[in-house]
Every structure is written in C-alpha cells, then in structure tokens.
C-alpha cells in the first residue's frame, strides 16, 4: 500500500470510530418556573425571535439540526452550547437576582445592537437567526423598557 492509501485508511478509521462517541444533547423538554417566558410578560413577537435566534445556545432545549449527529460537529456544537448557557440561560433566567436580571437584559440588548449576537457561524446555518433591523429594534426596545421598569422597582 502506498503512503497516501495508508494515511487515508487511518483517517477513515478514526472518522468512523469518533462517530460512536457522541456528547449528551441539551434537551430537557420541561419548562422551569424560572423560565424567561414565565418571569416576564413576553410578547409573542419577542418570544418567537428569542426562540429562533437565541434559544439553541441559551436555553436548556436545543433544536438540533440533522448534522448535529455527525462528529466532530457534535463536539463543537456541545462546546458552543455549554459556553452559551454559562453566560445566559433563558430557561432559568428567574434564578438570577433582580440586579443581575437587569444587567443581563441590558447586555442582551447591547450585544444585538453591536451585532455581536447571534454569532456569525450560527447565522450562516440558521436563516431565522439573521434578524432584520425591525426585529432588532423590536427586541431591543422591549429589553430596554423591561430593564428600565425593573430598575425603577428596585
């Protein structure tokens, strides 16, 4: 066997082998009492944007695409999701102190305004995460006014 054949054989075997090592998926299926939609009166329009553009990496329930079962994609994805959840988790948003909730609401708005979120690699694969200016404005206005009314309460 030539060198090239040996290398491609080895690569093929590795590729097959890693398919059997799958990370656990981020899917609980349950809605916690501290869920964002239960803590705030979220308008349906806002909720649907969050659902489509944010929840895959910032909630306990990811809506996985078909290629999520292909390695090494699954590992990269699992890594993105765990980082995302660590910074912001809509599924238990209400477990933050109200001070922190205000900060997070403002930061979500800032990240959208600055075009930092949703991240580019995610937008490439998810058409619904490419927010229009109208969607951004709607979302930012709601986030800001919710943050402001919370600040006024405290």
């Amino acid at each position, binding site marked *: *066997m030539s060198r090239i*054949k040996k290398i*491609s*054989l080895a690569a*093929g075997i590795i*590729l*097959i082998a890693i*398919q*059997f090592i*799958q*990370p*656990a*998926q*981020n*899917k*609980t299926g*349950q809605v*916690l*009492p*501290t869920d964002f939609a239960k803590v705030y009166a979220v308008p349906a329009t806002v909720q649907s944007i969050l659902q489509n553009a944010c929840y895959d990496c910032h909630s*306990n329930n990811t809506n996985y695409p078909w290629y999520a*079962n*292909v*390695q090494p994609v699954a590992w990269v994805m699992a890594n993105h999701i765990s980082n995302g959840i660590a910074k912001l*988790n809509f*599924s*238990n948003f*209400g*477990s*933050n*102190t*109200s*001070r*922190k909730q205000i*900060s997070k609401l*403002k*930061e979500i708005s*800032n990240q959208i305004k*600055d075009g*930092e979120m949703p991240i580019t690699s995610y937008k490439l694969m998810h058409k619904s995460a490419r927010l229009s200016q109208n969607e951004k404005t709607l979302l930012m206005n709601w986030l*800001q006014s919710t943050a402001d009314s919370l600040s006024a309460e*405290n």
Partner: protein
Amino acid sequence: MKYTIIGLAISVLGFTACNSNVDNKSADKQDMSQHEMKDMNMHDSSSENPAIKASESININSIITYYLQMKNAFTKDNDKEAATAGNEMVKAFAAFNKTSLSADQAKIYNDIEDDAKEHAEHIGMNAGNIKHQREHFEMLSKDMADLIKTFGNGGQTLYKDFCPMYNGGKGGYWISETKEIRNPYLGKAMPTCGTVKQEMK
C-alpha cells in the same frame, strides 16, 4: 480501496444516533435561588436602615481604587489599562473580607458582588473592544454607587456624575474622585461632557 473506505465512512454516519438525553443539572438549583432572590429584593433599599450603615471595620477602599483606576483609563480611551483594572478589581472583590459583615450587610454585599464581578471580568477580558467594555462599565457604575451608598466612600469624597449623551441619549452615570468632569464614556472625544449629580460623602 480509497472509495471503499469513503463509502464505509459515509454508511456509518447513518448509524450514529447513540445520543443520550441527560437532564440538565440546573433544575436542582431552582428552589434555593428563588428564595435567595426574594430575600435580596427585600433589602435593596439598604441605606435607609441605620443597622446596615457602614462600620469602621468594613473597608471597600481597594474596590473603589480599582474602579477609579478603570474610570480614569476610560477617560483616556485606554482599553488595556481598563482591562488591567478590571482584572485587579475581580481580585479585590475576592479578597474582600466578609467576616465583619452582619447578615444583612452580607446579603447586600453578595448581591452587588455577584453582578459587579461579572462586569469587571468582562472589562478585563475585552481589551481591544472599548465599546463593549464601556457598556459593562455603565452597569458596574450602578453597582458601585449602591456599594458606596451602603458601605461608605472609604474616607474620600466621591462624586456621582452623569453624561446625558451616552448610549444614544439614554445617558450613563459614573463615580469620580474629582469635582471636575472627566468623561469616561466619551473619552477624549468629549472630555468635559457631563454634570455632577451628587456628592457622595
């Protein structure tokens, strides 16, 4: 030979659905943190309660020092110095001695620290992105104002300043050790924009 391997690889892709659904651990923590949250809300208006006023032994000087260092870095548009101050501030929060705090004071302190430390961390990690650093600085300034309100100014007169132009006209507060305005949000572009709103004695 090559084609056999590739064919084999592709066919295996179809059989790889051995994913396990593991429940998310965060669910366990819910009850506890909700109670904590309620407690904290009750004590937000701390300064009106004389029992929570600062005592001599409580010293937030090092936290204030790094905040002011950060603020001064922003007035010079210096993202790297701001990041350094942010990292030092995280350490100052960690080093703060909570043992002399009463239960009520500890609650207020923990509430503020929990939020403020995250802002300081972000500022520390984001040298090169001063816009993002300043967004966190605005939120951090709110925390600092509350911290000073509860635990005192550490012996130096401080001023709560306001810049009406920051954040698209929403404005932003900051705390300064000088009466003279030096704007940390607009930096060198508009160094004297803003007004003193309050003297924090």
